[in-house]
């Protein structure tokens, strides 16, 4: 096992990783910008190094400063969390060059699965189902026309290097193709420094279903069931749950095994997620692989009783997975996570950051709050707006929803200029369609137009 792990991140995930280290008996090192000097992880970790000013380009994304902090403290491993440098193969390579174990897949594997077109080819070869579309980048407008005609509209154009819901456009009619093809490429170039795109069939209504897996370096892989993340707004997830009520045991096993097979076929090690779309007929199609721990990992932890961050650290240290597939299945109970963001749902989710004068998280049975916040902490405009992840567990979905409503009603957050997504979550949880579980990725949009229409009628 490692002696000392440097956490190259901030916010709740940095604290989450530091907690896992403490339980494993491993020393932790926090790195922080001047804006985060008073952050919870700086207080909690065994050591802390100030790495730069608030701007991420000179702190959390500044590789020399992070490597410098690791060398300064003698850390033998580095956990990248999510976002920032977590999926940067170049960074993983530098860590290796400096003799620091990067907690994640090997740089070349990360590069392969991070390229969406390559990932599609590899996973298709491993037997994962794909939507009709290209496995090679589409390099000319003529080609785009031919392919889209073949697949049939609507199609979706996606940046090969894309992620986080960025760099994709839905094309409903052929006459819009030329414009959207050019714009998507330009966006991809601007955001991801790579203009390559591919095209696939666009499903109007589908559910976002993802398989969590962890592979060790001895060729063992375990899938930890799936998560349903269909409650999203503009591709940003708001509510996640595990398991999906739309997968039966046979399908879960089939797709889980295929996902592990696909990951092992490329030499994947560490924690990763395979994203699928689930259509209304129950067919799954592979979308992409995320080579990192994800924000919503706690719901999988609660239905499998496995600490995924600890597993991630263990396998990076060269140890075997501590659990087998049989230990993990069947999934037990139901877990739901709500992302509480400092955003104003009534003003198009505009950031509403500020100092938290009041911060009282909920407690009680089977209620977990992953958060770096405390009374007096300031949600900084420099970083993302996540205040807390509220996660509950119950024996079944109905009772998990009831418990989440109870927990949300307990959560007190206020401060000058601060707004949260709590009321929005409460209204979604109250909606009969959410309660029924019949939710697809367009649910939030419909829900918001329904609310807007009701407000107009009432006004």
């Amino acid at each position: 096992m490692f002696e000392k792990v440097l956490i190259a991140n901030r916010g709740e995930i940095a604290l989450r990783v530091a907690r896992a280290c403490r339980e494993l008996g491993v020393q932790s090192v926090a790195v922080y910008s001047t804006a985060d000097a008073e952050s919870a992880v700086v207080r909690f970790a065994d050591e802390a190094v100030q790495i730069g000013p608030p701007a991420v380009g000179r702190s959390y994304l500044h590789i020399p400063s992070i490597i410098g902090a690791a060398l300064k403290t003698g850390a033998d491993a580095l956990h990248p969390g999510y976002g920032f440098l977590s999926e940067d193969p170049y960074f993983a390579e530098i860590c290796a060059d400096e003799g620091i174990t990067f907690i994640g897949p090997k740089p070349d594997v990360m590069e392969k699965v991070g390229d969406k077109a390559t990932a599609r080819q590899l996973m298709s070869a491993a037997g994962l189902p794909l939507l009709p579309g290209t496995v090679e980048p589409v390099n000319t407008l003529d080609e785009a026309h031919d392919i889209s005609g073949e697949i049939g509209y609507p199609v979706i154009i996606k940046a090969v290097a894309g992620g986080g819901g960025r760099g994709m456009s839905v094309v409903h009619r052929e006459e819009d193709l030329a414009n959207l093809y050019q714009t998507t490429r330009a966006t991809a170039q601007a955001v991801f420094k790579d203009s390559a795109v591919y095209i696939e069939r666009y499903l109007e209504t589908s559910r976002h279903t993802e398989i969590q897996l962890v592979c060790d370096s001895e060729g063992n892989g375990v899938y930890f069931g799936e998560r349903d993340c269909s409650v999203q707004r503009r591709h940003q997830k708001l509510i996640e749950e595990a398991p999906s009520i739309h997968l039966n045991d046979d399908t879960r096993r089939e797709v889980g095994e295929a996902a592990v097979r696909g990951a092992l076929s490329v030499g994947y090690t560490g924690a990763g997620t395979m994203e699928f779309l689930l259509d209304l007929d129950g067919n799954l199609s592979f979308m992409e692989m995320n080579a990192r721990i994800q924000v919503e990992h706690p719901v999988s932890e609660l239905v499998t009783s496995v600490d995924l961050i600890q597993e991630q650290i263990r396998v990076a240290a060269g140890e075997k997975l501590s659990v087998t597939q049989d230990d993990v299945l069947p999934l037990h109970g139901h877990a739901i996570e709500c992302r509480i963001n400092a955003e104003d749902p009534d003003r198009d989710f505009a950031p509403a950051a500020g100092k938290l004068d009041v911060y009282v998280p909920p407690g009680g049975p089977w209620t977990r709050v992953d958060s770096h916040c405390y009374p007096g902490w300031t949600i900084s405009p420099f970083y993302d707006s996540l205040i807390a992840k509220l996660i509950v567990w119950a024996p079944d979905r109905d009772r998990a929803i009831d418990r989440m409503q109870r927990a949300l009603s307990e959560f007190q957050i206020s401060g000058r200029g601060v707004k949260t997504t709590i009321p929005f979550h409460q209204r979604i949880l109250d909606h009969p369609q959410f309660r029924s579980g019949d939710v697809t990725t367009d649910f939030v949009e419909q829900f918001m137009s329904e609310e807007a229409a009701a407000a107009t009628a009432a006004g």
Partner: protein
Amino acid sequence: MPEPKKSESANQELVRAVWEEARDLIKRLEGSTVQRFSVEAGDTKIEIERGMPAGASMVAAPAAAMAMPAAEDGAAGEPELDGRHPIKAPLVGTYYGAPQPGAPQFVQVGDSVEEGQTLAIVEAMKLMNQVQADRAGKISEILASDGDWVEFEQVLIYLEAAE
């Protein structure tokens, strides 16, 4: 279901992307003397002109590409104890008081220095970052030694006002 406005949303995304790029640049340019820049992609272009913050001294533009002024907030505003002015590390790295091993130190306690004079080097991943005086003065204390690991904004040297 209403037909979504496709091209509009794609353009919005492009504008957002360009804006984020610009915003990132603005943050990265904190403390620098760059006053105007533009970012463009496709037909979308954002031009930014920055005012200099009130009271910020015009730190001499570093001559070499790798030279960095001492960490920004040392220059303006901070109350100084006993008239001593801190020179802080511009980034995380290894401190060196001399240009190379065996060479004489850049400065000694008691030396008078000019604004812009190199006082030390902080090495990060084999890049030598010069630490320069952001004002003239006399070296009153050197807190770091060759080979020390230093953090961002760690005080390396104190200057006192020259007579």
